[in-house]
């Protein structure tokens, strides 16, 4: 019998971190205690609880982590609510990796990188950011502009403060939507903050966040002189098979699960606006 990607493998949840009130990060390994498979930053995996459902999630840990994979998941539907109820030791099913991932070994190499994220949108970028940190010599400067509704909604806040901000050559700019006690950082929406910071147009941009943020940030970047070919994003659509067959995530002549989820904005310009 040939191998079948639709038949998953078993993963064990070995650690659960409450990141924000509605985001948890799950650490997953195989039943033998080892990492289930290798991936490229930006790739995804199908996680499932049999009887509840299966869904596509971005692998938020870096491939440079040899021990485990992590998934930062926001509670918003049936499956994610179930995942949020899990305790350590729970088994889930995992299949993957799926999708193209970010071009960390080609387009990004040697470039100054600008990461822009909003809310849970940091999750897929975390994989790339840590990959770049672990292969620092291959990339130029790194700037991270990240915003969320409030201080509590900043995903991976501890890692940002304790690790990213302490790295040489990484500039982190955080912002929250509204004033909050205990916050002395920037207040305001991501698109405006990007314009204020006026990043150098030589940078390659990697962006992920809610559609409205993407829309205004992209417009802002264009005003600053950025062009679509230097801006990358990663998309989320309903998926079932994750291998470009079931038809759900088909937009134009692309399947987001297989041809994406990472696209450059000039590529998206050629597709119908159905995402």
């Amino acid at each position, binding site marked *: 019998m040939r191998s079948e990607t*639709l038949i998953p493998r078993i993963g064990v949840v070995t650690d659960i971190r409450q990141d924000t009130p509605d985001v948890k990060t799950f650490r997953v390994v195989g039943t033998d205690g080892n990492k289930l498979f290798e991936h490229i930053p930006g790739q995804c995996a199908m996680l499932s609880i049999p009887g509840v459902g299966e869904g596509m999630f971005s692998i938020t840990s870096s491939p440079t982590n040899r021990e485990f994979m992590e998934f930062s998941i926001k509670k918003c539907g049936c499956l994610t609510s179930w995942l949020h109820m899990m305790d350590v030791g729970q088994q889930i099913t995992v299949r993957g990796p799926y999708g193209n991932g970010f071009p960390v070994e080609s387009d990004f190499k040697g470039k100054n990188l600008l990461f822009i994220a909003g809310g849970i949108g940091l999750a897929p970028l975390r994989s790339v950011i840590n990959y770049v940190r672990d292969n620092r010599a291959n990339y130029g400067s790194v700037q991270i502009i990240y915003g969320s509704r409030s201080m509590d909604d900043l995903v991976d806040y501890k890692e940002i403060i304790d690790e990213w901000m302490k790295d040489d050559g990484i500039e982190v700019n955080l912002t929250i939507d509204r004033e909050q006690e205990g916050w002395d950082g920037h207040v305001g929406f991501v698109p405006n903050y990007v314009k204020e910071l006026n990043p150098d147009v030589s940078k390659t941009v990697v962006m992920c966040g809610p559609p409205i943020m993407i829309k205004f940030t992209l417009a802002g970047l264009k005003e600053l002189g950025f062009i679509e070919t230097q801006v990358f994003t990663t998309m989320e659509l309903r998926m079932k098979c994750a291998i470009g*067959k079931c*038809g759900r995530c088909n937009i134009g002549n692309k399947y987001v699960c297989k041809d994406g989820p990472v696209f450059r904005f000039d590529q998206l310009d050629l597709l119908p606006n159905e995402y």
Partner: protein
Amino acid sequence: MFRLPVSKMDEFFGAIAAAQTLYLPADGKDGKASYVKWESGIALSKALNTVRSAKDFFFPQTTNLCDFNVNGKNIEIIDNRTESEDFVVFGVRACDARSFTILDKVFLAEPVDSYYATRREHGTVITMACTAPEENCFCNVFGIDAANPEGDAACWLTENYLYINPITEKGRKFIETVKGLLEECDSAEVDAQKAATKEILDRLPFANVNTDYFRKNTLLDIFNSDKWAKLSESCLACGTCTFVCPTCQCYDIKDYDTGHGVKRYRTWDSCMYSDFTKMAAANSRTTQLQRFRQRFMHKLVYFPDNNEGEFGCVGCGRCLSRCPISMNIIKVIKNFGEEE
């Protein structure tokens, strides 16, 4: 080329069925043809085609992908796949035969779908040439010759003989298993039938329907056309066209908790359905216009874009005869073509 007297058809089917399961179109109580497992006494339908397409043999309405046992925090995955048994599908028309090669491009592309692949490997497709195409037929628009079908072996039924010609290795192997009943012959009678059928095919109402519009215009120009609003206006949002279509292959994966284990199923799904793209937080296609457009764009633009220009339609005409409101791919193609 081989042949067999029509009087020996039963014996012929019997010989095939002795070696492997044989499916062929037979008439049901309602007078409509559908594929059934052949048993002694079942006659080959005289209908032009089956109501449902032949895709069921390789991509059935439901497939059990795997099972799970859930016990506390532990999960056991049960891979209950079995190798398909050998089977023969007899009497497949040229349009449906082509649909298999279209489905192959989806299911046999890496990563190969093992459920489809095993059925495909173990299934032998014996096609039957058409002699009396109907008004809804337009396979010739897609370069299919109804008088000379593809498949592992092709048949032609004349008044006195069933002619059969192997095409693939699998077809030749099939011929070997029934060789005792066959005699070698020339193709004179078949050639005459082909010529007669061609004469009819050439005067079919849709013989000259022009698909150039979908080749000449860009994906976004076609997508953004204001014609979709009118075309989709009375669409009922049912899945009839999708489910009778031999090339529609979208599917859903669902878990079913039986109370003593979870079964994971794949079932046909339809892009015409309102929840097809619905996620917990958003839905990327909220109107029937969008969903209707997706189906036709997929067949006429997206699929060809990814498959060297081959359209995702074989002109079998099922959607034409089955759509509850008689809106169909021909009306879409013609409506866009009118602009030319």
